[in-house]
C-alpha cells in the first residue's frame, strides 16, 4: 500500500521490451540498481514497470543490449499534473477548496449547552450573545476561562461551569445546584462567597479561612470562606500567606418572595389532529422554505426540530435543516369556581415548593396567603428557607484583609 503510494507520487512507466538478449537486459538493470516490477512474458515481447528515474538511467543499457523499448503507459502524479497543467481553474478550485475549509474551521459554528435544569438553553445562549459569543465568531476571540468566570459570577445557581472548544463547536457544561458541588472541587485556589443575602445558620470549613460566624448577616457577594491562609507566630505577627481552594458547607436562612395570579376563565386547547409539515433549509442568514398553506381561520401550535449539518463529528457548518410541524387546535373557554381556583393555587404553590425541595432546600416558614375575589385568584407571601449559600469565586484579596483587620481591631479593643 505504502510502496504503491510512493510509486504513484514518483511516477512510473509501463514498458514494452523487444529484442534478442532481454534476460541480459534485466540482469544489467539489476546491476545498475534499477527496480523493475511486474515483469510479464507475452510470447514475443515482455512487459514491465519501471520508475521514472529508472527509465532515464536505462538508456545506456538499451543501447548496449540492442533492445527495443516502447512506452505503453505513463502513470503517477507527475504525469497527471503534466497532463492537466493547462487546467488553471481546476487548480484554482482545488486551492480555494482547501482555503475555504481552513477558514471555515477558524470559526465557532455551534454552541452546545449541557446540564441546564432551571435555566433554559436559550437563556444561556442569549447571555453568551451579550458577551459577543455566538455562532460565527472567531475561535481565537473566545476566552473559555473568562467565560467560565463570568458565568459563575452572573448566574446565582451555577455552581460549576466548564467551557471547551472542540473543533468548531463550543460546549458549555453547567452544573446547576444550590449546593456548592464538592464532588467537582476546583483545583485552582478560590474563595467561597455568598450566593444571596442571608443569615448564616451553620458553617463548616474544610479548607481556607472562615470569615463569618453563625448568626452573621451576609450580603450577596460577601466572602464566606477565603482561599488565603495566614499563618501567625506567637507574637501574632504574620509569618506567611498561602493560597488554597476553599472548601466547606455554608447554610443560611433566606427569603423567597412568592407571587402568583390567575383569572377564573381561561382557554383550553383541543387538538383536531390535523398536521402540516414544512421544511426549511438555512444557510447563514438565508432561509429557503417549503411552504404549505395553512388555513387562516384555524389556530396552530408550531413545533420545530432543527438539525445542523456537520462534517465528521466536530466540524459544524453554518447550515441547518429545520422541520416545522403545525398542529391545529380549537379554543374553548372555561370558567372555574372559587373552590377550584383555590385548589389550583395550592397546587401551583406546592409545585414551587417541591421544586425548591428537589434542589436541596429545607422550608422553615411559609407565609403565603391565597385570596379569591372578582374572578381573580392571587397568592402572595414570603417563604423562609434554609439553604446552602456557598458559591465558588476567584480569590478576592481585599475582602480578606479588611475582615482580618476588623478582627484584629476587635481583638485589641478586647484586650
Amino acid at each position, binding site marked *: 500500500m505504502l510502496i504503491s503510494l510512493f510509486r504513484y507520487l514518483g511516477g512510473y512507466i509501463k514498458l514494452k521490451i523487444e529484442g534478442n538478449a532481454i534476460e541480459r537486459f534485466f540482469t544489467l538493470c539489476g546491476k545498475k*540498481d534499477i527496480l*523493475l516490477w511486474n*515483469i510479464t*512474458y507475452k510470447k514475443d515481447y515482455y512487459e*514491465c514497470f519501471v520508475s521514472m528515474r529508472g527509465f532515464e538511467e536505462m538508456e545506456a543499457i538499451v543501447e548496449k543490449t540492442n533492445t527495443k523499448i516502447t512506452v505503453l503507459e505513463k502513470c503517477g502524479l507527475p504525469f497527471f499534473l503534466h497532463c492537466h497543467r493547462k487546467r488553471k481553474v481546476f487548480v484554482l478550485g482545488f486551492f480555494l477548496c482547501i482555503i475555504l475549509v481552513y477558514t471555515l474551521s477558524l470559526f465557532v459554528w455551534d454552541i452546545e449547552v449541557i446540564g441546564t435544569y432551571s435555566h433554559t438553553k436559550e437563556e444561556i445562549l442569549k447571555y453568551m450573545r451579550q458577551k459577543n459569543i455566538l455562532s460565527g465568531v472567531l475561535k481565537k476571540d473566545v476566552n473559555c476561562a473568562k467565560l467560565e468566570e463570568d458565568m459563575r459570577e452572573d448566574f446565582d445557581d451555577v455552581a460549576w461551569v466548564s467551557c471547551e472548544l472542540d473543533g468548531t463547536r463550543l460546549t458549555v457544561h453547567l452544573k446547576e445546584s444550590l449546593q456548592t458541588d464538592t464532588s467537582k472541587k476546583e483545583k485552582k485556589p478560590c474563595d467561597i462567597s455568598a450566593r444571596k443575602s442571608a443569615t448564616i445558620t451553620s458553617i463548616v470549613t474544610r479548607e481556607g479561612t472562615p470569615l463569618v460566624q453563625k448568626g452573621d448577616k451576609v450580603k450577596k457577594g460577601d466572602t464566606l470562606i477565603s482561599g488565603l491562609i495566614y499563618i501567625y507566630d506567637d507574637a501574632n505577627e504574620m509569618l506567611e500567606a498561602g493560597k488554597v481552594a476553599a472548601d466547606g458547607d455554608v447554610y443560611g436562612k433566606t427569603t423567597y418572595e412568592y407571587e402568583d395570579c390567575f383569572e377564573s376563565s381561561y382557554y383550553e386547547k383541543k387538538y383536531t389532529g390535523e398536521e402540516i409539515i414544512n421544511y426549511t433549509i438555512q444557510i447563514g442568514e438565508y432561509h429557503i422554505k417549503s411552504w404549505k398553506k395553512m388555513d387562516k381561520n384555524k389556530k396552530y401550535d408550531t413545533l420545530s426540530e432543527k438539525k445542523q449539518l456537520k462534517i465528521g463529528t466536530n466540524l459544524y457548518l453554518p447550515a441547518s435543516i429545520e422541520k416545522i410541524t403545525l398542529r391545529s387546535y380549537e379554543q374553548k373557554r372555561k370558567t372555574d369556581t372559587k373552590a377550584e381556583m383555590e385548589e389550583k393555587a395550592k397546587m401551583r404553590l406546592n409545585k414551587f415548593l417541591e421544586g425548591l425541595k428537589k434542589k436541596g432546600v429545607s422550608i422553615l416558614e411559609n407565609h403565603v396567603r391565597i385570596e379569591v375575589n372578582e374572578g381573580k385568584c392571587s397568592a402572595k407571601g414570603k417563604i423562609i428557607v434554609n439553604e446552602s449559600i456557598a458559591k465558588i469565586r476567584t480569590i478576592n484579596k481585599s475582602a480578606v484583609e479588611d475582615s482580618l483587620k476588623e478582627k484584629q481591631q476587635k481583638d485589641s479593643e478586647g484586650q
Partner: protein
Amino acid sequence: MRRKKQKIENKSVPMNVPEDIVFGALVLLVTGNKEAEIQNYRGILEYTDEVIAIQGKKQVLIIRGSNLLIEYFTNESMKVMGQIDTIEYDTKKMRWKR
C-alpha cells in the same frame, strides 16, 4: 588456491558460518507453490511463463511451472509468482543453454 578454498568450504559448516555470505550460495524462500523469493544471484538466464533460469555463483537454478511472473527484480532480490511445479539445480552446465 583451489585446494585452499576447498578446505574453507569443508570447515565452514562446523564453524556455523552462513554459506550464503562466505560462498555466495543462492538463498531461496519458497511459500507454498505460488511464491519464491530468491537472493544472491548473478542474473537471469531465461525467462518465459514456463521456465525461469537464474545464474548463481556455482549453479543454475531452474524454476519450472506455469503462468510464471517476476513480481520485482533488483540487484539483491527477486520474487517469482505463479504456479511452481519444480525447482532444480544444474551444477554441471555452468553456462545455461536453451
